[in-house]
């Protein structure tokens, strides 16, 4: 820490890594809180166009004198963090990521999910990334990939211990994009095959949550077919208790179940039943693992690339299209008119 900054007490000089938060809404606020308390990360700046976001930030961190900027470029150039964390709502993700690239940022970039509100925007970001020298790592924060629980399931899928993965079911009352996109990403990650078709029927309306009434994110059911012939079904509707909520992977030689509270993964095969992993589900600890993976290549967590995040978004875009067209299956690759469709996702 320079002498000029010595008068600022409490900026956390003992932390191992530095980051900036671009967009400081509720979620980012909670992530920042967790990372700072964990002690390995130092927040060197923040940025948000909202004066309310600034004021809320000050209500907790005024003592730390963390500079809070209105523009991304200022936050990056003035403080040069290792990681830039884009945590605004989805409509701003790509624009902020482009601002980061335009500022010549040389660190790692983590973008909150969903990657964008339209596939065309996600495509634009992918093109932008290809045009830049590949000196940085860009990942999308599908934090379940940072959970040892889900990593242990991925290890079984990879090992072939239970044979070929045939089908995945996920059941939980949730919004399809907000919570559901985590499981769409997990399913895509486990399947490891290109999407073939998506069919869906969604709820007639979307409840209003803290993100605002502008956003539209209904639950419903979605069926996914992969080019490899594997299938998946997501039931994001209210269930009766005996229908077995949670994640279920069906293999040729057995199955794996993860309970809806994400506390344990159980493997069942002819050889018997065993627990793969058990943990107290702490979402922010998983996010911290993703942060660590960004700066430590040796970390076991597998980061979600922008292309993979675009695939998760594609399922949601296709699901909304299928629903509007009477549950018609939507075939991949998606045509240009569907790719350019802008959803009201947060």
């Amino acid at each position: 820490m320079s002498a000029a900054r010595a008068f600022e007490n409490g900026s956390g000089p003992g932390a191992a890594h530095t980051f900036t938060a671009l967009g400081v809404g509720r979620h980012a606020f909670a992530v920042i809180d967790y990372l700072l308390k964990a002690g390995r990360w130092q927040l060197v700046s923040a940025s948000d166009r909202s004066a309310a976001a600034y004021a809320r930030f000050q209500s907790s961190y005024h003592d730390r004198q963390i500079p809070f900027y209105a523009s991304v470029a200022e936050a990056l150039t003035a403080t040069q963090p290792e990681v830039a964390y884009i945590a605004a709502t989805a409509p701003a993700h790509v624009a902020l990521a482009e601002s980061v690239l335009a500022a010549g940022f040389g660190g790692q970039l983590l973008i909150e999910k969903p990657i964008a509100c339209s596939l065309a925007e996600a495509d634009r970001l992918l093109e932008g990334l290809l045009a830049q020298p590949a000196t940085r790592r860009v990942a999308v924060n599908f934090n379940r990939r940072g959970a040892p629980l889900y990593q242990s399931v991925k290890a079984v899928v990879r090992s072939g211990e239970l044979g070929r993965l045939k089908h995945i079911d996920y059941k939980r009352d949730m919004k399809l994009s907000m919570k559901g996109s985590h499981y769409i990403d997990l399913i895509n990650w486990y399947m490891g095959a290109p999407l073939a078709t998506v069919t869906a029927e969604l709820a007639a309306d979307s409840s209003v949550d803290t993100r605002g009434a502008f956003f539209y994110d209904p639950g419903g059911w979605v069926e996914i077919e992969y080019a490899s012939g594997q299938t998946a079904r997501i039931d994001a509707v209210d269930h009766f208790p005996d229908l077995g909520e949670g994640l279920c992977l069906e293999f040729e030689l057995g199955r794996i179940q993860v309970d809806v509270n994400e506390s344990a993964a159980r493997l069942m095969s002819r050889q018997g039943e065993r627990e793969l992993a058990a943990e107290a589900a702490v979402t922010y600890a998983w996010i911290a693992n993703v942060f660590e993976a960004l700066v430590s290549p040796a970390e076991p967590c597998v980061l979600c690339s922008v292309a993979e995040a675009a695939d998760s978004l594609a399922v949601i875009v296709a699901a909304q299209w299928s629903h509007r067209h009477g549950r018609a299956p939507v075939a991949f690759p998606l045509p240009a008119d569907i790719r350019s469709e802008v959803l009201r996702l947060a």
Partner: protein
Amino acid sequence: MIKTRIKRAAKRTLKAGYHAFGWVLPARVRREFRTYRQFRRMGGQPPAPAPAPAGIPAATAVATAPYYWERRERPGVDRPAVRVGLVGAGNYAQHHLKVLADLDRVTVTALLTAGAARGQATAARYNIPLVTQDRGQFVQRDDIDCFVVVASARYMHEITLDCLATGKPVLLEKPPGITALETASLVQQALAHHTFGMVCMNRRFYSVLEHGLAALAWAGPIRGAVMEFPLAFTSDRQSRRLAEWDYEHYYMRNAIHGVDLLRYVMGDPLAVHSLAWPNEAYAGAAASYAALLDYGQGVTATVVDLWDTVQRPRLHVVAESGWLEFEPLEAGWFISEHQDKLALRPDPVDVEYRPGVYAQDLHFINSVRRGVAPARPACLLPDAYRTMQLMERIQANSLSHPAPAAPAPTLINA
């Protein structure tokens, strides 16, 4: 599984609001926290009871909003010394001097004045070693780290240009220019000399505004705002308190605070639809400026300046689950979704000093110490340029007036 269902149902109930579990919390706490979750987030402790802010009838301030913090410098911190060159010794300069004199390791080393006796008296009161009328000599002094320019509005632009040319940071009073173009020339000057200029938009630093916005941030997205900034123009002009030049540029000089504050809270609009009645033919009497600002996604704001009405600015900021009311801007309330009206408690520095000035000047001085341009909520020159652009768009009158009627239009209820 049934246990899980019960657990999730309980979680949903708590999320839905404290009213379902209202019996758990005492009445005073129920008034102050929107949800049980919010109560828990605050550490389960209600804020300390606070006296009603000045000017608020005690009966109205039934409770205070939960967000509150103080801005005064903490003692015992090793801070680099900062030497200030001050321009102006008028009324407003006294507000800055009072703050600068109280900041740790800040000294005013030189004072540039227009020569009135007040300069000498001010220098004596605040122990300023040098008083000069020579601007060239003043700006070239080695014992100045930064400038605070509180000159009259007419000379603000040219003095600031000279100060910025030294490459030292400048804190300047509003307006930074009388047009956006003039302000742009200051932006260029600062860039050319690798320094920054910060405009005194002290309302951005009002503690009640910050405390209110912190509460509103938990009340869902902001959907809109209404700013009313009436100015008692004709009576002010007749008082001859200011020079005639100031009255000729009254809109830019005075209405800038209202427009800038709205811009600060709401951001830059995508479109501006305005109706302006400057009434120049009648010396600006009863002028009106009204604008509808479109921010996209259904977010809108209105700004209404009705001149020659009671001069009491009002701001209303509406989020999905609550809103803020400021009337006047120095006193505010957060109204929750249950329509509990919670008074916003001001920081004592906004009572001891002119509201916003302590936090603003401290923010500037700390930036000088760091050697970097100040972050939010500072209004840097490029930011001020955009505010002035917005003012000019409001003045530009994008909507058409109705055709003159015969007989002459009459005022409603007149």
